[in-house]
């Protein structure tokens, strides 16, 4: 299989890009792949914190770009999951310290050693996003069921299409099923209709995400929460498996796999 470079982006901030990147990267590695997650949010890095690797940073991506060290020196190996690495970026620099051509070069180098290269994009549609997306072939767009987040997702999808990324697939994060059922929240099908792209995952709003970030343990390492399952399923779908969607409304613990809606939204 040819190595794949995937940018995780959203337009709007705070919808769960970094959480998604950390959990999907971890889950892809757990499936037996060699995976590297790159923090593309120079100046506001957080991927290291979500993955619990912040104390192991010696060199950053910017050091490699400056020629201070080799690219391989920036790789932090996650000891909990075989095959998982991350590359931190600098906290003390700004997003214009990286150029798109440099990111393309970094991705090309990493393709020699990894099956999947995930890039956590910063919010926004400016230089930081363009750098993060530069080396990527495909994209995951994260949104929440909010008018504002979906609107920004639409903008970013337009930009990704103009950059000829393919496939571009949607993760709807922080769904509160009981609110959707009452008609209080935007529904996933409606969101897919207006954005006209394929779904790759629905992640429920889940307290386990907060505890996992506090501890620096990505959910997909060992959690059995529904958000953990949703992220594992996304990783499995990225890897090409046909995974049914979870019924977010089933009682937790009992019948988690009870009512399944098979491969919803795949045939668009």
């Amino acid at each position, binding site marked *: 299989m040819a190595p794949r470079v995937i940018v995780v982006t959203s337009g709007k901030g705070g919808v769960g890009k970094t959480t998604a990147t950390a959990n999907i990267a971890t889950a892809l590695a757990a499936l037996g792949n060699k995976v590297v997650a790159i923090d593309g949010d120079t100046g506001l890095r957080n991927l290291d914190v979500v993955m619990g690797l912040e104390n192991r940073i010696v060199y950053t991506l910017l050091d490699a770009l400056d020629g201070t060290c080799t690219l391989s020196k920036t790789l932090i190996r996650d000891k909990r999951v075989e095959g998982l690495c991350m590359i931190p970026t600098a906290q003390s620099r700004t997003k214009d310290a990286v150029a798109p051509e440099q990111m393309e070069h970094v991705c090309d180098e990493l393709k020699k050693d990894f099956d999947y290269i995930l890039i956590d994009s910063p919010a926004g549609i400016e230089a930081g996003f363009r750098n993060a997306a530069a080396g990527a072939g495909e994209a995951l767009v994260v949104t929440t069921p909010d008018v504002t987040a979906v609107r920004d997702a639409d903008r970013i999808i337009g930009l990704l299409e103009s950059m000829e990324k393919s496939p571009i697939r949607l993760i709807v994060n922080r769904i509160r099923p009981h609110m*959707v059922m*009452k008609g*209080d929240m935007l529904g996933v099908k409606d969101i897919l209709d207006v954005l006209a792209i394929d779904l790759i995952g629905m992640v429920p709003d889940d307290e386990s995400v907060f505890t996992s970030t506090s501890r620096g343990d990505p959910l997909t390492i060992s959690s059995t929460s529904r958000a953990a399952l949703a992220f594992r399923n996304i990783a499995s779908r990225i890897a090409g498996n046909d995974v049914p969607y979870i*019924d977010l409304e089933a009682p937790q613990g009992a019948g988690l796999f009870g009512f399944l*809606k098979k491969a919803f939204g795949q045939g668009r």
Partner: protein
Amino acid sequence: MSIRSLLSSIFGSRSDPRDRYDDSPGQVGMDRLAVLLVHDRADISPGMMENMKLDIIEVIKKYIDIDENQIDLALENEDESVALLATIPIKNVLRRRGRAAK
């Protein structure tokens, strides 16, 4: 609630109207989103809307005496699609001049 309607409501399908009311926050949000995206995608700025309005006024007032200050032009949701709606109050229909007068 049947499993089918339960699923369709989770997925936000409009196919089962019992689960979704037109004035529910979710539906109101979708309607507002649809209008926002038409503006965003077509890149119609408020300035363009204003210019279009002025052009439309010029054409219509050749035929009808309209109240130019009360004209409202907006993109709105009509059933399942977005429409350009113009509300143009008429003051007077101009009397036609007889052809023979020419």
